[in-house]
């Protein structure tokens, strides 16, 4: 797994108060017991870790171009943003 994925999993695991080994790519935020406030906090931590800006409004999570459907989807989306925002 990439170091990007490791970092993201570490952030999500810390937010969910789990061991990183317990967080897998197919899990959803709901599976992990992360509520809307926890989600906003995790997004902030990911932005800080990679110095990127993630488009997300808590009022319309469905409308975001950023895929939050699972841990794996978040990793893929962050990888995409890093490529895009570095360009």
């Amino acid at each position: 797994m990439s170091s990007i994925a490791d970092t993201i999993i570490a952030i999500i695991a810390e937010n969910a108060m789990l061991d990183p080994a317990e967080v897998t790519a197919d899990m959803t935020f709901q599976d992990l017991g992360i509520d809307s406030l926890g989600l906003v906090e995790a997004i902030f931590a990911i932005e800080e870790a990679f110095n990127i800006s993630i488009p997300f409004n808590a009022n319309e999570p469905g409308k975001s171009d950023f895929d939050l459907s699972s841990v794996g989807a978040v990793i893929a989306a962050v990888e995409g943003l890093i490529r895009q925002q570095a360009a």
Partner: protein
Amino acid sequence: MGRVVITGTGTVNALANDVAGTFAAFCAGTCGIGPLDIRDADRLSIQIGAQVRGWDCEARFDRAQLSLFDRVTQFAVVAAQQAMEQSGLDLTLPETARAGVILGNAGGGMTTTDDNFRTVYEEGKNRVHPFVVPRLMNSAAASHISMIHGLRGPTFTVSTACASANHAMGLAFQLVKSGAAPFVLTGGAEAMLTFGGIKAWEGLRVMARDACRPFSRDRSGMVQGEGAAVFVFEDRDHALARGGTILAEVTGFAMTADASDIVMPSIDGAVRAIRGALDDAGLAGPEVGYINAHGTGTAANDRTECAAIRQVFGAHSGKLLVSSTKSMHGHVIGGTGAIELLACLMALQDGVIAPTVGHQEDDPECDLDVVPNVARRAQVEVAVSNAFAFGGLNAVLVLRRAD
């Protein structure tokens, strides 16, 4: 127990710098939200707000006052002055020893805080103006108003986030009702449209980028505003004895805590607050004609508030007129309930319901008559004003038309 009436009103907000102008804007459905004109706005991702524009503080205050008045105090002092003038109260009366000032405010003097943090952190200076503390303290506005008008009784500031003004007015109502004070200047003020103030809200990701559209299916969050509204809450017999004009009567108040979450609202807490206020007023639901909703335009608030209203009013919900004037004057945080009480007064006094502007699409989860976009004529006997703050702190007021 006495009865409590409103005998004076004043306001400064994005719609107008007085009550008559605010009522006219409510009637016209004017939106006071526009591009933010503040320092470092280019570093904000939120670019809109309901700002008080063209504020001529130099024309309104002398040099000594300006060195002591943060923007939030300036708004509150002007609103209080208007309210006192309208009331016609004689401030030489001995009972000013028991009269007071109770205001709601969340952020304190945020322009002062922002400017002086810049001075010490950004510019690296080691000296600040001597009046930073008296300018930024949350209670500064209440103190200045008490000094200007010589009100020497209960005077303090209540801070319960977005419910601050409703809590303040509720306490003023109870004090006057109990006989502890003959009248109280009460309401709220906020001036949080500073770089730091908006940046903090951005972090929470609940702010709209284009418009505040409460109850509209395509709503995308809240828009901050600034301003103040201040009222004279007076003992009814006291007002009648001096020949004061009664604008409306305050008949009920209740406050509750959700005791559940620091940002997500609960239906139960809102239901108990609305029901408690109606009980305090000795009213049945069907007597209520208008509700000024908390209506922030966030997904969470609007859905929860509508469910709470349905639960309290049952079959009568369909006949209620429910609007959120935050769509026009923005969310004035600790002062918002005071500006919103003006919409209740307009409904009772003039029979005109302020609309919820920016409405584009009905939301089945907000299935109430939200008076979309256009003000409406309606004879209203009783109006309710909701405030449901972060941290689950709820405060609801009930007003009745003057008899």
